[in-house]
């Protein structure tokens, strides 16, 4: 698997053999390695010194389930930290079919607009002025017209072009819709700052992957898939009801962010639940149990149709629904789906957008529950009005601008859809992850031994999860395929996959050392960028303001937080 380096200043492209030193780096770990070796941590994230890295994981190109995950990284303009955001969709799978491990976009062509077209052993920067200013849905439709329906597209909408720090990199799904997002941390703005509008991937041919022991690999994959299917979450709940299945239970736990994190329980939860979504889409001819990438045996994704039975959006997820629904006081799935569509199209992180809007609601700019008001604010972002540009800088910037005290962010990135006062293990992750507040770095929702509001034991829970997630993000596997690793036999199958793919001695420790090394590199980058342990803190209102109905506060002392991820 090769690296493709793209120099946007010189407008040249170069394929490279990465060499032995990179053999065991993929996904999030590879991003951390390249950034720590090649990018000055003090650089301006939107300047030419930053690099945009798009890569696949260690198991990419194989039959390992969900191994087509795509990682996108760079220094984040939202947080100022290192950033890896990953997404499903077909682009990771296609990169493997084109023999690519990574595309590294360097330098910048400010004010210009290019399309990078990649085929098997070929890459060209094409003039993209004709596509400038287009949002993702129309952009992808036009690119499909120009280059064929089977292409994969990695693109930015207007938000990335405008340099919004809450902008995404969007990725096409199995239907060719740009509905999967490497959403967090404003990487769309990094791509925009380079003058790169889209990467078009030709479909390619079956990937060429060498195996130490192919037969053993296939057998490990088979057993692991059985493990995924036998697990009640990845085998039953997610295929039937998607991630939105969490709405009702997180509400019952009192952890569903409601009206800018002022309550953990929303009276309209049932109306925006996964159960309701599945029922509605069965009536309208939409789809649950949809796979966002080829080879996913889970299929947590969906195709969401509107009242008229027409396609509205896809990959409509729990976080989006909770943060634009309950957290904005909106109890209509259709309303939230329209927000989701607009965000995917314009290229906004739905999570950061939901928390930003809720902060506007708290400030009295629009009332809670005002769907039309939300659409008007999104339109302001799209039009680039002065206030729209403020919104595009994210929740922390908007909160400060409006004089709001209760701003739910860590390191400038918004907290996800689990209030940390009622799910404290996830709270430790929000506080201490090198990514800023990010639930995908270690969500304790399935933890059975340590109660969610208990103070003791959460640092250890979070640390173990953070190592596990950093490992999965580096293998290039969707973290939802990892629920079954609660059973050690399934960890064994993963170890077998790595041993039979790469050769050499592998055990559980070597497997998880991938995550530990990744976290260590990320922390090193952040330290050099000026971050210290005092940045690893939750917003102070969460330490003092009890969260109804449990009336829990986040009471894990700072000294305890400092013991998390000690690598």
């Amino acid at each position, binding site marked *: 698997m090769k690296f493709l380096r793209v120099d946007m200043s010189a407008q040249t492209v170069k394929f490279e053999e990465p060499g032995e030193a990179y053999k065991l780096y993929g996904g999030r770990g590879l991003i951390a390695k390249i950034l720590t070796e090649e990018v000055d941590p003090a650089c301006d994230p939107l300047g030419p010194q930053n690099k945009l890295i798009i890569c696949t994981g260690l198991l990419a190109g194989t039959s390992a389930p969900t191994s087509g995950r795509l990682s996108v990284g760079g220094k984040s303009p939202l947080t100022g930290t290192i950033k890896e955001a990953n997404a499903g969709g077909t682009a990771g799978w296609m990169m493997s079919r084109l023999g690519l491990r990574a595309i590294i976009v360097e330098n910048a062509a400010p004010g210009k607009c290019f399309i990078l077209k990649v085929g098997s052993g070929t890459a060209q920067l094409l003039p993209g002025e004709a596509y400038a200013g287009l949002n993702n849905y129309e952009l992808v439709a036009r690119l499909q017209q120009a280059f064929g329906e089977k292409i994969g597209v990695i693109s930015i909408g207007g938000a990335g072009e405008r340099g919004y720090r809450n902008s995404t990199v969007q990725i096409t799904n199995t239907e060719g819709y740009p509905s999967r997002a490497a959403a967090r941390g404003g990487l769309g703005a990094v791509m925009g700052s380079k003058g790169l509008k889209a990467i078009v991937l030709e479909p390619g041919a079956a990937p060429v992957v060498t195996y130490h022991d192919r037969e053993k690999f296939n057998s490990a994959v088979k057993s692991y898939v059985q493990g995924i299917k036998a697990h009640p979450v990845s085998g039953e709940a997610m295929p039937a009801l998607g*991630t939105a299945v969490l709405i009702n239970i997180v509400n019952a736990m009192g952890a569903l962010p409601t009206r800018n994190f002022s309550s953990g329980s929303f009276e309209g939860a049932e109306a925006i639940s996964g159960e309701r979504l599945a029922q509605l889409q069965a009536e309208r001819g939409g789809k649950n149990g949809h796979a966002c990438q080829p080879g996913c045996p889970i299929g947590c994704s969906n195709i969401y149709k509107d009242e008229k039975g027409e396609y509205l959006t896809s990959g409509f997820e729990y*976080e989006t629904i909770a943060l634009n629904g309950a957290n904005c006081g909106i109890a209509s799935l259709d309303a939230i789906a329209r927000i989701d569509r607009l965000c995917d199209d314009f290229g906004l992180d739905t999570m950061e957008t939901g928390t930003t809007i809720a902060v506007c609601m708290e400030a009295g700019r629009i009332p809670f529950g005002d769907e039309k008001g939300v659409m008007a604010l999104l339109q302001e972002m799209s039009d680039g009005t002065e206030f729209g540009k403020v919104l595009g800088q994210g929740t922390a910037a908007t909160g400060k601008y409006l004089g709001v005290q209760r701003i739910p962010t860590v390191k400038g990135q918004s907290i996800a859809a689990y209030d940390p006062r009622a799910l404290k293990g996830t709270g430790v992750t929000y506080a201490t992850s090198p990514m800023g507040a990010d639930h995908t770095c270690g969500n304790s929702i399935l933890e059975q031994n340590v109660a969610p509001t208990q103070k003791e034991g959460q640092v250890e829970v979070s640390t173990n999860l953070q190592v596990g997630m950093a490992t999965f993000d580096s293998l290039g596997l969707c973290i939802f395929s990892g629920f079954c690793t609660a059973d050690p036999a399934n960890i064994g199958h993963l170890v077998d996959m790595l041993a039979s793919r790469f050769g050499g001695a592998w055990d559980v420790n070597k497997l998880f050392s991938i995550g530990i090394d990744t976290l260590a590199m990320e922390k090193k980058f952040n330290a050099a960028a000026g971050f210290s342990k005092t940045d690893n803190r939750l917003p102070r209102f969460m330490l003092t303001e009890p969260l109804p109905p449990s009336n829990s506060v986040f009471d894990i002392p700072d000294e305890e937080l400092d013991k998390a991820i000690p690598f």
Partner: protein
Amino acid sequence: MQVYVKLYATFRLKYKDYDVPGGICLELPPGSTIADAMQALEIQPEKVSLLRKNEVITKDIHAALAEGDVLEVFPYVGGG
């Protein structure tokens, strides 16, 4: 006595005409416990991740139920 059981996620899918928001009304002998209610609905305790009785989280499946109690039963779910 009558108690109401609200089912969530995959537990709910078994009932085609499941009533939201009422749940399932069960007729149980006085002195019945949460475990009895779950047994009546053929729900195995090991498949339950969260239980609430009258909106309060409980782990005690042997707790007695009273007339009009509302029980909420969640299987394991994840994602996000």
